């Protein structure tokens, strides 16, 4: 239920299952991600942020759709392109920006930057600078869940490129062998940096590899939040029941370059424009309108509130505290350790 009206009975499960609040919160998160990254990009171009960053603009549906199925106590492991996962799982953009600006208030107290943002309190075990690095870590988190007899799950985000790492093979095999509660969510955006899946994989789909681990391999439209959320919800239910892991492949696209240094030589303008036309945010908005969840005013309000939150977050971050070089080695070891 929401101010605008009740959800139409012919709507797909996603719209039946989630309350209007949840659906609008999801849209808001997609906007937060989009504006967060646009803000980060601008700050970078103005020289306020150093290092590199990997933007997921165009991929917000998979990040938010996959995390909608999760509880706060569920885990995720994320990637170098992890802002969306982080916000999806419930992190505060203020503290993410503080991290970008290298401040003590940041999630990693300025030590990690974009590639290492983590918010363990909301179950995010961290972005990762190593392609495939999070794969076995997610399996380990799921093992701990089982050992502690919790009914939580671990969602492991990874890219098409990462699926060519040996870590992928070892992780999926162990997860399935031990029937652990993991959902492997592949964000297949067609490229690992500049190399297309055709040029890096012997099979057409990452999901084609799932059978080698006796695991369901589901392909969804990664730009449809409903598609992603339904598939991950089902995989999560399966995992919570003790029936083991699944692989969900979200076909999507990053409309920005791989990182700041990308000159887009490996793909055509047409391809980029083509995918821009399939932007997951307007698409979700159209569905929300069509299913009667929200009208134009409500959508505008959400957009504006997300924009305001991001603007405030940047302001907060810019005024944060710079780390003291004298604290350089403080966090190498735990205080009570030898």
């Amino acid at each position, binding site marked *: 239920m929401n101010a605008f009206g009740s959800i139409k009975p012919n709507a797909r499960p996603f719209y039946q299952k989630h309350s209007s609040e949840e659906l609008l919160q999801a849209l808001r998160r997609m906007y937060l991600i989009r504006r967060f990254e646009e803000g980060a990009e601008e700050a970078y171009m103005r020289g306020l942020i150093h290092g590199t960053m990997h933007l997921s603009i165009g991929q917000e549906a998979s990040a938010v759709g996959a995390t909608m199925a999760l509880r706060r106590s569920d885990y995720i492991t994320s990637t170098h392109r992890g802002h969306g996962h982080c916000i999806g799982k419930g992190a505060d953009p203020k503290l993410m920006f503080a991290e970008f600006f290298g401040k003590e208030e940041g999630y990693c107290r300025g030590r990690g930057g974009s590639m290492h943002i983590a918010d363990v309190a909301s179950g995010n075990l*961290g972005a990762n600078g*190593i392609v495939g690095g999070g794969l076995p870590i997610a399996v*380990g988190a799921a093992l701990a869940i089982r050992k502690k007899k919790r009914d939580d799950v671990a969602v492991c985000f990874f890219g098409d490129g990462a699926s060519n790492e040996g*870590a992928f093979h070892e992780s999926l095999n162990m997860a399935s*062998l031990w029937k652990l509660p993991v959902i492997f969510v592949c964000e297949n955006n067609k490229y690992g940096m500049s190399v297309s899946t055709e040029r890096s994989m012997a099979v057409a789909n990452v999901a084609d590899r799932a059978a080698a681990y006796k695991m369901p391999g589901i392909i969804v439209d990664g730009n449809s939040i409903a598609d992603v959320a339904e598939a991950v919800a089902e995989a999560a239910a399966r995992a919570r029941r003790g029936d083991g892991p699944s692989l969900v492949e979200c076909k999507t696209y990053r409309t920005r370059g791989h990182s700041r240094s990308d000159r887009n030589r490996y793909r055509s303008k047409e391809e980029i424009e083509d995918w821009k036309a399939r932007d997951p945010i307007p698409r979700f908005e159209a569905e929300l309108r069509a299913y009667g969840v929200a009208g134009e005013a409500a959508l505008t309000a959400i957009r504006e509130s997300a924009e305001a939150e991001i603007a405030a977050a940047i302001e907060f971050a810019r005024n944060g505290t710079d780390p003291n070089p004298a604290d350089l080695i403080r966090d190498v070891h735990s205080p009570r350790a030898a």
Partner: protein
Amino acid sequence: MTVRELTYAQAIQEALAQAMDADPDVFLMGEDIGVYGGAFQVTGDLVQRYGEERVMDAPISELGQAGVAVGAALAGCKPVLEFQFSDFATLAMEQIVNQAAKLRFMLGGKVNVPLVMRLPAGSGTGAAAQHSQSLEAWFAHVPGLKVVQPSTPADAKGMLLAAIDDPDPVMVFEHKLLYKMKGEVPEHPYRVPIGKAHVAREGRHVTVVATAIMVHRALEAADTLATEGIEAEVIDLRSLRPIDTDTIVRSVQKTTRLACVYEGVKSLGIGAEISARIAESEAFDYLDAPIMRLGGAEAPIPYNPTLEKAAVPQVPDIVTGLRNLVSGRI
């Protein structure tokens, strides 16, 4: 306090059992550590006592195993991972070095990775170049890791228990030739602190810093030299990261001479670091002779037994080396 004779392998097994008894979050993972009992029979029948959930045989996937252990540690468990041979850690360097060692730091101190890795190391078994390496110096170069090398059954137990208590990742290098060595081991669970060297023998003419099996060879060499009136002080380094520099500095200030004896390849082996620490310390001015290093040869470990022996310091090499060092003939 009961004290019995145990082998080094039995002492480790006892530590594992006591840690599992004390803390349900502790579990073991590795290759063939279950019904096989471990390639070196360290886990023995623990699987019968603790079940397959706590003594987990894993597929031959070293990188994956290490990552699983990291993830389980992040999520509140205390994994003890056995590499079947330390050589196979080459497959897991990514998770050990980029993840386990750095996660706490990269996350601004917000997490712990209470992970223990056990690694059988060293030569002397005729297993050739890919099963005989001493790679501990690599890990001693990595901030965020702790690296220990116990040389006695008592230390093997006490340092392993200290490692399992530790909130940060600890790598325990176990020398394969020591597994059958016997020694007195107290029965109760006790800790030997990480980061403290041990003066295994006192002496006044030369300080010998040794690790793992070289501690025993150095002690044997010291016995021989004692008959010639040369009193060597033998320090068992025990911990390669952090290093107990103070104990070595104090000893060198007394003896004025230093030798480092270790099995790893000489260049950039642990002796390089010990030497450099003393050469930059307040002990420098006390030095009456160059600092000697007796380390492994600049070669992979060969299969042929005679060559294999020649590739790492033996007792006669140590005797000769120390004798020359003390008499100024180097």
